[in-house]
């Protein structure tokens, strides 16, 4: 098809950024990345971050490329972050949310995506409630697929922006004690972060109520505890996960009050951590449920920085995947 030729023509020159590339043309999860690829994305994001500080926050890198943001689940920050990243790279973008899609008319996911593909987008950024939905698309469709969160499986760009934020503060990932606290079982943020941080050599402690620990978690690697005090003790990074209040109905915990008293991050608990601890949260936060406002707004909180860094990291991912396509690679 003629689109292939025109894609190659418009491919960005490697120019001032690192010439290395990713092995896959999709970003389905952290699970497919090695330490070198993770470092490449984070290094690329450093350059992208600078663009966001200019008065004209736009580069022509993805000019003429079409990116579709296909969100089958409500999302504000991730979708906005991708949209801004795409616009700063000069891509033509289109965002579709479930309420306005054909899904409500009983169309299958594959038919929805193939219909979009008939209009020749280059990349599809997808959020979906079903684990593995992006893997299905990657197998059956032509476009490069970026996973913006699939079910309880992975949320790779969140883990990358978290790593970027940690690196910005600590200068490294290896050897840091990182505590991840909350609803581990249902969290895609947790899975992507655990894989990434362990790949990069961090000492990861996971903590949550016994009812919300994924079965087989011990085999994931990392340290496991149901005591937040133990998890936070001496930690360089404390990452809190959102707890969905509906979980009470699955008998996972008795009440929000009890959850906060056993697993909430308070200033008192945070005193056990390292002096220069940073506190993270992927959002949206439930103040007074998993995190005390005094911590969320306190001196160690980098929660808003995470949001800012999300744009740079997503620019890096889109740029690298586009470059991967420009080489005409198939994987």
């Amino acid at each position, binding site marked *: 098809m003629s689109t292939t030729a025109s894609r190659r023509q418009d491919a960005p020159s490697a120019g001032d950024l690192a010439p290395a590339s990713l092995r896959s043309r999709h970003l389905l999860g952290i699970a497919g990345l090695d330490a070198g690829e993770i470092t490449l994305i984070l290094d690329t994001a450093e350059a992208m971050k600078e663009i966001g500080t200019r008065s004209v926050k736009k580069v022509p890198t993805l000019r003429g490329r079409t990116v579709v943001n296909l969100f089958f689940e409500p999302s504000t920050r991730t979708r906005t972050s991708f949209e801004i990243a795409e616009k700063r790279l000069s891509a033509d973008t289109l965002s579709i949310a479930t309420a306005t899609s054909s899904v409500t008319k009983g169309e299958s*996911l594959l038919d929805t995506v193939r219909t979009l593909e008939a209009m020749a987008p280059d990349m599809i950024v997808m959020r979906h409630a079903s684990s593995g939905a992006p893997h299905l698309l990657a197998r059956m469709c032509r476009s490069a697929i970026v996973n913006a969160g699939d079910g309880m499986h992975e949320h790779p760009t969140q883990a990358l922006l978290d790593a970027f934020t940690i690196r910005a503060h600590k200068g490294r990932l290896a050897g840091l004690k990182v505590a991840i606290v909350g609803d581990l*079982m249902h969290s895609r943020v947790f899975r992507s972060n655990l894989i990434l941080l362990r790949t990069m050599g961090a000492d990861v402690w996971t903590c949550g109520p016994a009812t919300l620990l994924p079965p087989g978690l011990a085999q994931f690697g990392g340290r496991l505890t149901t005591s937040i005090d133990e998890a936070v003790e001496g930690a360089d990074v404390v990452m809190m996960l959102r707890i969905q209040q509906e979980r009470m109905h699955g008998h996972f915990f008795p009440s929000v009050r009890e959850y906060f008293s056993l697993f909430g991050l308070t200033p008192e608990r945070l005193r056990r951590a390292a002096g220069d601890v940073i506190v993270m949260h992927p959002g949206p936060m439930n103040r007074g449920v998993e995190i005390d406002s005094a911590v969320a707004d306190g001196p160690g909180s980098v929660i808003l920085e995470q949001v800012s860094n999300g744009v740079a990291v997503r620019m890096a991912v889109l740029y690298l995947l586009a470059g991967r396509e420009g080489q005409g690679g198939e994987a």
Partner: protein
Amino acid sequence: MANRLLVKGGRLVDPANGVDGAFDLLIEDGVIRRVGRDLPASDAAVFEVPAGCIVAPGLIDIHVHLREPGQEHKETVATGTASAVAGGFTAVACMPNTEPVNDHAGITEFILKKAAEARLARVYPIGAVSLGSRGEQLAELGEQKAAGCVAFSDDGRPVATALLMRRALEYAGMLGVPVIDHCEDPSLKGDGVAHEGLFASVLGLRGIPGVAESLMVERDVSLAELTGAHVHIAHMSARQSLRAVRAGKERGVRVTCEVAPHHFTLTDEALDGPVKYDTNLKMNPPLREAADREAMLDGIADGTVDVIATDHAPHHADEKMVEFDRAPFGIVGLETAVPLVFDRLVHTGRITIRRMIELLSVNPARVMNLPGGTLAEGTPADVTILDPAMPVTIRAAELRSRSRNTPFDGWTLRGGVVSTLVGGRVVHAATRESHR
């Protein structure tokens, strides 16, 4: 003039009659007339059995979904029985979760009429325990038995309450037929889609623990003990269930059980394989972990497991080509069972060929009180001829079933079906090409 066929050569294995050796089989008007060494052909047509092949009583699959009436886009009685005979099965028992559910004699009669028209495998309908399989009110089991049902089950879901199961066992026991239970605690299963364990956690899939099955097996074993009736445990997959069945058998409870080929072949690790989230690996009960598969293999070898049944569950490709958690449970099994049993059980030394015939023919007939499972003189000539050395490559596109949902596409296995005879009629004969 009698229609006579001499099945000549090969090794005849008929465990029900203690026969194993070089015997010929003379069939007259669809009935086995004589079993003996070097029988003369005289005026009979001769079916030469290739050297090294096994002549066995017709295989019987007591757990299939023929989908008719109501879901003919997945399978029909005709396509399902074509799949059965291609897989070496001369008879199948079909589950009642059709649309509408087979909870009335009229539906049983309809299925039997379709089977008679197809003239392939024999079909034995299984009726619903409760109206609509809703677990609220007993179906008319007596009427259903009179119409041709050989057992009762609410398969697809468990018999809902302990009280209903108790009454069903008592009532079916009075009729002399078993109740088959799909064992699963609904609250523990929840909206699970894969075995609860490492791989479901890694892939972010909701889990179904093994005890969701075994809790219900324990309930049913206790109720069979209370009522003295016969309960048959469908598609057993968890090691805890095997323990419960074994304990029940040891104290004399009338409990039997079956295992499906995918549960002694695959584990949940396959979900994380080269094709992640392959919906052809989604079935209920789910593929379990290695320790469970080992337990099934042990149970098959030591006799705790009575029957190998496929749980043949055809689904249209469109239905399976969706997100993993939205795909229907189940895979087709009729045409892959024999190669898997040979390759994974016989050639690995876990079971003998005699035991294989018990698991696939003798015991299924006994468990369901069906004719068959024997090559005795005077019985209908349902015969399966097997080649333990036949190289078989599974090709989903070439299955006789209307559906293609198998995880074994492309697998190369050793051991297959040469020919299938129902009532003395050759209803399937493998061509050399078809198994190369």
